[in-house]
């Protein structure tokens, strides 16, 4: 805890000592090496997704029946699948699908969840009770079952999968955010806003929501890894993103299992990509949580 600057000179000195971005990053790497590793993986994944069209050696959808199921070699670094499509290119393009679905689902899930959580805490009383009971109902469903039910209603495809994955996240986010918002509701500035005659919407959105930013950010980051995993599971079941789109879960489906013995590269590499991505997001999320909220620190 730094001493509060008293004089102008002290203020100026404190200003000059403000660490720059470079040293903040260096400090993060030194103090949280695993978190830095996670951040590195995340950055690599984002860059890969953004530059997929430059990085990928082949068109991920281009079939080449002359080179079906060919083993990794100088031409196809990670081999080809049952349609002769380049596995490496499909993994590179698959990162786009994973990131899009992961980010989309976390964004929607966290936004809706935190709105419900804050509103529930703000209104309290009967509203809070009803909202909590409804959330309890959603909690009684296993995540994948709820996601499958939503897919059944909306149909498959990337957009619907985002909604399907966001759905089970809403009650989970709402519960955590509500707990934080309950404490904030008693803060003097919320009282002041109410006394000033502000409307419910202005208090909820303008005064309470910004102050539960840390738990929301933590939840959203934690969801990202889970969302990527869930997307892969749904696609693997054939109920997520559809062929011929490049998606990691989809690559593990069907032929990858069928030809696992003769063409193991089809089963190994996409799974590695999923694991590495989720690993990165989880490590990064953990460290972020430690850094942002010391109370939640996992010893």
């Amino acid at each position, binding site marked *: 805890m730094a001493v509060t600057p008293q004089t102008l000179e002290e203020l100026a000195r404190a200003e000059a000592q403000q660490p720059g971005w470079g040293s903040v990053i260096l400090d993060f790497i030194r103090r949280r090496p695993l978190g830095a590793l996670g951040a590195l993986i995340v950055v690599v994944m984002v860059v890969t997704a953004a530059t997929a069209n430059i990085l990928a050696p082949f068109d991920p959808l281009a079939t080449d029946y002359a080179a079906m199921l060919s083993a990794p070699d100088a031409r196809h670094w990670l081999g080809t699948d049952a349609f002769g499509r380049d596995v490496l290119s499909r993994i590179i393009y698959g990162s786009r699908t994973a990131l899009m679905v992961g980010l989309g689902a976390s964004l929607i899930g966290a936004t809706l969840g935190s709105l419900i959580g804050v509103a529930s805490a703000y209104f309290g009383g009967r509203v809070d009770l009803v909202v909590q009971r409804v959330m309890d109902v959603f909690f009684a469903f*296993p995540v994948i079952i709820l996601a499958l*039910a939503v897919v059944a209603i909306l149909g498959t495809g990337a957009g619907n999968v985002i909604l399907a994955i966001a759905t089970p996240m809403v009650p989970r986010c709402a519960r955590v955010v509500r707990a934080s918002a309950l404490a904030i509701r008693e803060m003097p500035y919320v009282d002041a806003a109410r006394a000033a005659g502000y409307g419910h919407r202005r208090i909820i959105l303008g005064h309470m929501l910004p102050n539960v930013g840390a738990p929301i950010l933590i939840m959203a980051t934690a969801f990202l890894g889970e969302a990527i995993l869930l997307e892969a599971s749904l696609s693997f079941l054939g109920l997520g993103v559809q062929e011929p789109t490049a998606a990691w879960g989809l690559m593990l489906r069907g032929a990858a299992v069928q030809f696992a*013995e003769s063409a193991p590269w089809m089963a190994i590499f996409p*799974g590695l990509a*999923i*694991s590495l991505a989720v690993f990165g997001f989880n490590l990064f999320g953990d460290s972020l949580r430690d850094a942002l909220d010391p109370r939640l620190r*996992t*010893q």
Partner: protein
Amino acid sequence: MIRYIIKRLLAIIPTLFGVAVLIFLLLRVVPGDVVEARYMSGEGQFQSQELMQIERKKLGLDQPLWKQFATWMAGLVRFDFGLSMWTGNPITEEIKLRFALSLQLALMATLVATLLAIPLGILAAVKQDTWIDYAVRVFSIAGLAMPSFWLGILLILALLVFFHWLPPMVFTPIWVNPWENLAQLIWPALAVGYRYSAVSTRMMRSAMLEVLREDYIRTARAKGLWLKLILSRHALKNAMLPVLTIISLEFAFLLGGLVVTEQVFNLNGLGMLFVESIARRDYTLTQALVMLVATFYLVVNFAVDIAYAWLDPRIRYR
């Protein structure tokens, strides 16, 4: 204590009712119904509309929604799930064997998770901030990151390459041939258990660290007690509570949450049945499955709460 139990038990009922309403409505929003699913695909595409209406009438699908719901509810309170709309068999018959499979798999996976989590968590806590601690952390986070279906594929691949073993096409119940049954289920249990051990390992570690800082542990050490004895007799007992909670809650979700693992290992469990029944728009079967999984989850939750109150009197009367 009795009052607490009754209060918690009564709290389950409105939640279950909510689950029933939600799944009932969700299924009605899904486009198509069982008659369409049966006749509109494949060669029966040109079925006459009248025939389909007769079929619907037979299944009670022509009734207004509230009436369908009331009929279903009336059956549920008598523990009568009714008949499957697709096969016409009693749902209890359809579910029986699959429930046994999923429950056994969930139990075995939980056992694997526990056997991994408790020793690893203790080890990491005792060797805090050493390379052992980091290795355990990486091991458990890696488990959390690997999709269990991929782990399953790798396991099958390894078994295939080294032992020429393939997952059998049919499931052998444990009461028919225990050995064959275990040989079949141990692999999916390992794949799932490893993944689910991650959270409990970390919980075990942090709970243990917290307990090790308590005064009574310092006293025990000052007395010159062996570290082993302190760990097993003093620390473990007090650190177990949160870990057991996490493990049981994970177990509660495993019953219906193993859809993908069942797919990989070709096991006809509840998860596969759920996917199938949704695809066939078999309302009665899907509803029964969801109620079963939700009840299981709520009952395990309830049992954890009661066990907690019983083990820790401080929270009993809140």
